[in-house]
C-alpha cells in the first residue's frame, strides 16, 4: 500500500444532518431533466423536440463545438418540455419517464479486450461521455485527446458528502470494470485517490491502477488536490477525472450494455428530518425524495454539497454530476449588530467570534453572506484552506484583469471551482471566488481552445 499523503491545508465544516447509512425508498419520480448549465464550456444543440420518444441512452442534446459529445437520456419516455430562459437559452429538457425503463442496447463487452477507440466509442455512443471531465478547465473531456493520466477520487471530503465505502458496496464488479475501461483510454496511469483515514475497501484494489492514500481536511477528497500532490498538470497536458459513481456507471455500461444512470444519493442537511441514502437516477425530480422529510420554514434546496452545489427548487431536478441533496435554512434576516455580537452558532476559521470554544459542534448554518462584498483586504486567509502551491488571490486578480498569461503562469490549469470553494467560504471580503474562476477558465477556453 502506498504511503499516506497528508493534505495540511483546508477545513472541515461540521454540519448537522449527516445521512445515516441506510437506503430509504421513495416514490419513483415521473419526470427527469438534463440541465445544460451542468456543463460549462459546452454549446448545446437539441437532438430532440417536445413529444419525441426516447430510450435510456438516446441522445437528448449534443455539443455544437464537438458534435461527437452527446448527452444521453437517463430514462426512457417522452420529451415533455424544453424549458428556456432569456435569449431562448435552454434551461432544462424534461423527460416524462415510462413506468418501466426501456434501455437502448449498446452491447456488453469486456473493456480489457477492446481497443481504445472501441471503449471510447461505446461510452460516447451511450451518451455517457460527459461523465468524463478534463483538467484544465474542468469541462467535459475532449474525446479526441489522449490524457496524460486519469484520476478517480474514491472519497468525497465535502460537508455531508456520501460515504464512498457505503456507496460502492455491492457494486465492486461494476467499479472494477469501469476502471478497466478507463485504463484503455490513457497511455499513462489510472490513479485512485483513497481515504487514508480508513482501510480502503477491497473494491478499490484494481490491478493496474495506482492507489494513493490521502488524509487531511476538505478539500483532500478533490481530485485536483490529489493530482497536485502527486503529479501536477503542466501547460499543454490534459488529465481526465471521473467521479466514483460515474466509474460504476461506465462499468455497468460494459457489463449490461445499457446506460443505467443510477446513483446512490445522500439526502442530508439540518433541515432534513431523516437524512438517509436513496437510489436515484441522474436528473431525477427530487420532490418524491424530499416529500414529508423536510422541516417547515424557508429552506434552501441544493443539488450537491453546500460548497459547490446548485440551488434548486423543492421540486427541482438532481444535477448531472451530483450524488447529494442538501437542505439548509435560507436565512436572510438582518442581524442586529451582527458584525460585533458574539455568536456560537456560526462558522469561522478565525477566532474573532466565539465558535472556537466549541470546535466539534455540528452547526446548522444558513445561506447568509454575513457581510457585504468589499475589496481584497485581509490576506493569508485563502492560503489556510487552499492546499495548492498556487497564489490564489493573485490568480483571482489576474482573472479580474483578464491577463491570460498571468493566469497561465499562476496555475489556472490545475484548479477547478471546487478546489477554490473554501476560499470563497472564508473570504472576509465576500468575493465571488468560484464565479470569478469560472470566468477565467471560460476566457482561457475561448482564447486557447481545449
Amino acid at each position, binding site marked *: 500500500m502506498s504511503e499516506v499523503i497528508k493534505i495540511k491545508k483546508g477545513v472541515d*465544516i461540521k454540519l448537522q444532518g449527516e445521512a445515516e447509512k441506510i437506503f430509504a425508498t421513495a416514490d419513483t419520480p415521473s419526470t427527469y431533466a438534463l440541465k445544460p448549465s451542468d456543463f460549462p464550456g459546452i454549446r448545446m444543440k437539441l437532438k430532440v423536440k417536445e413529444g419525441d420518444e426516447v430510450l435510456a441512452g438516446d441522445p437528448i442534446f449534443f455539443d455544437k463545438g464537438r458534435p461527437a459529445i452527446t448527452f444521453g437520456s437517463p430514462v426512457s419516455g417522452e420529451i415533455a418540455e424544453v424549458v428556456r430562459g432569456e435569449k431562448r437559452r435552454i434551461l432544462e429538457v424534461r423527460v416524462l419517464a415510462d413506468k418501466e425503463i426501456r434501455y437502448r442496447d449498446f452491447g456488453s463487452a469486456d473493456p480489457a479486450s477492446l481497443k481504445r477507440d472501441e471503449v471510447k466509442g461505446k461510452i460516447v455512443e451511450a451518451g455517457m461521455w460527459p461523465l468524463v471531465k478534463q483538467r484544465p478547465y474542468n469541462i467535459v473531456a475532449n474525446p479526441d485527446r489522449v490524457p496524460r493520466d486519469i484520476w478517480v477520487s474514491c472519497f468525497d471530503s465535502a460537508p455531508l458528502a456520501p460515504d464512498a465505502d457505503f456507496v460502492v458496496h455491492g457494486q465492486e464488479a461494476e467499479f472494477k470494470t469501469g476502471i478497466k475501461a478507463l485504463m484503455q483510454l490513457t497511455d499513462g496511469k489510472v490513479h485512485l485517490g483513497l481515504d487514508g483515514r480508513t482501510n480502503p475497501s477491497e473494491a478499490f484494489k484494481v490491478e493496474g491502477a495506482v492507489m494513493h492514500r490521502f488524509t487531511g481536511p476538505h478539500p483532500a477528497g478533490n481530485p485536483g488536490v490529489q493530482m497536485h500532490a502527486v503529479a501536477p498538470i*503542466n501547460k499543454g*497536458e490534459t488529465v481526465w477525472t471521473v467521479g466514483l459513481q460515474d466509474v460504476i456507471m461506465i462499468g455497468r455500461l460494459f457489463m449490461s450494455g445499457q446506460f443505467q444512470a443510477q446513483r446512490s444519493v445522500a439526502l442530508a442537511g439540518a433541515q432534513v428530518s431523516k437524512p438517509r441514502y436513496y437510489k436515484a437516477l441522474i436528473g431525477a425530480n427530487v420532490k418524491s425524495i424530499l416529500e414529508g422529510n423536510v422541516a417547515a420554514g424557508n429552506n*434552501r434546496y*441544493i443539488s450537491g454539497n*453546500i*460548497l*459547490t*452545489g446548485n440551488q434548486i427548487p423543492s421540486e427541482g431536478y438532481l444535477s448531472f454530476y451530483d450524488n447529494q441533496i*442538501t437542505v439548509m435554512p435560507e*436565512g*436572510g*434576516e*438582518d*442581524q*442586529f*449588530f451582527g*458584525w*460585533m455580537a458574539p*455568536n456560537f452558532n*456560526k*462558522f*469561522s*476559521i*478565525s*477566532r*474573532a*467570534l466565539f*465558535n472556537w470554544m466549541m470546535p466539534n459542534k455540528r452547526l446548522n*448554518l444558513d*445561506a*447568509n*453572506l*454575513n*457581510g*457585504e462584498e*468589499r*475589496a*481584497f*483586504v*485581509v490576506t*493569508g486567509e485563502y492560503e489556510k484552506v487552499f492546499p495548492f*502551491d498556487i*497564489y490564489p*488571490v*493573485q490568480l483571482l486578480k489576474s482573472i479580474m484583469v483578464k491577463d491570460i498569461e498571468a493566469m497561465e*503562469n*499562476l*496555475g489556472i490549469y490545475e484548479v477547478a*471551482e471546487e478546489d477554490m470553494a473554501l476560499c*470563497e*467560504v*472564508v*473570504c*472576509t*471580503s465576500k468575493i*465571488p*471566488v*468560484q*464565479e470569478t474562476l469560472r470566468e477565467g477558465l471560460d476566457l482561457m477556453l475561448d482564447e486557447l481552445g481545449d
Partner: protein
Amino acid sequence: MKLFKNILDSVKPHFEAGGKFEKLHPVYDGFATFLFTPGHTSHSGAHVRDAIDLKRTMITVVMAMVPALLFGMWNAGNLHYTALGLAETMTFGDKFLWGAMKIVPMLIVSYGVGLGVEFIFCIIKKHSIQEGYLVSGMLIPLIMPIDIPLWMVAVSVIFAVVIGKEVFGGTGMNILNPALTARAFAFFAYPTYMSGDKVWINTSADAGQSVVDGFSGATVLGSYATGGDVQYSVWDMFMGFIPGSIGETSTVAILIGAAILLYTGIASWRIMLSGVIGALAMGYLFNAFAPHAISPEQQSFMSLPGWQHLIMGGFAFGIVFMATDPVSAAQTNRGKWIYGFLVGFFAIMIRVFNPAYPEGIMMAILFMNVMAPLIDHYVIQANINKRKKRLATVKAA
C-alpha cells in the same frame, strides 16, 4: 432593536432613487449596515460563508488597541502630574481622567473628521462606506504626542484619508498605511509639535503649580540618541511608565493587543515574529560593532542590548498594529517573512544611525510599505519560475 429597524425602514425611501436625499444613500447605508448586518444570502458559489466580515475584522483590531489606549490615558496623566511634582498626591482616577480629557477629544476629532471625509468620498463615488477607517481612526491618536493641537490631528487625518487612501481607490487599494501617513504628515508639517523633548509630556501648570526643577521630558530614545542620561529602568520601559506617543509606551498593553490579534487570527504572526527577529538581528549586530562606533553617543546607543530595542519607543506598537496592516504589508506568506524582518531591521538601524530622528519604526514601515509589492512580485515570480521549470522537466522527459 425593533425600534431601530422601524426608524431605518421609515426613512429608507428618502434615501433611495427618487427620494429627497438620494445622494446621501451611502450615509444611510453606512448607518443601516452599522446597526444591522444585512441579511443578504449567497446567490452564486458556496452556500455558506464565514461569519467574519470586514467590520468584525476591524472592530477586533480596535478592541486589541483598547489596552494601549487606556494605559495611554493613565500614563499621560501620570507623566503630567509627575512633571508638576504632584504624582504622589493624585489618585489613579485623577490621572486617568486627566489623560482621558486630553485623549477623548483627539479620538472624537479623528473619527469625526476621518469618517466625514470618507462619507464625502462615498457620496461622490457612489459606493458604500468601507470599514478601514474604524482602525485608522483609533490608530492616529495613539501615535500622536499628547500635546498636539486638535486642529493638527484634523489636518493630518484629512491628508491621510485623501492622499493616503482615497486617491488610490479607498480601503484595500492604498499603498501606505493611512495612520502612518497621518503621522508622517504631522511630523514633517509640524516638526516642533512632533519631536524634541517638549511634546511628550504635558507640562502646562495651573496657577500655583510649576514644573519640578531639572525635569526632562526626553523620551528614552531621545536620551540614547543624544548620549544623555536615561532616567527610566527596563521595568519602566516594559510597563510603559515613560514618555512617548500616547499608545506606544506600554509593551505590556501592546502585548495584550498582540495576543488578541494573534489568537483571533486577524493579524499576521509571520510579520510580528519576523519583525522581532529583524530588530534583534540589527540590535545585536550593533552590539558587535559598538567598539568601532564613531562617537561616544553612538557607541552607547550601539551597546544597548539588542532585546531592549523591543521595549523602547514605538517599536512594539509599530510591529503589532502598523506593520501587520494587511493592505500595505506584503501579501504573500513568504513575502511577509521578508517584509517583517526588514521592518524590524531598518527600524533599529534608523534609530541608531539617525540622531535627529531616533524613532525609526515609522520610517521603516513606510519604506517597507513601498517595497512590499516588489517583495511580493519576486515571491510570486519564484512560484511562476518553479512551474516553468517543472514544465521544462516534463518536456525533457
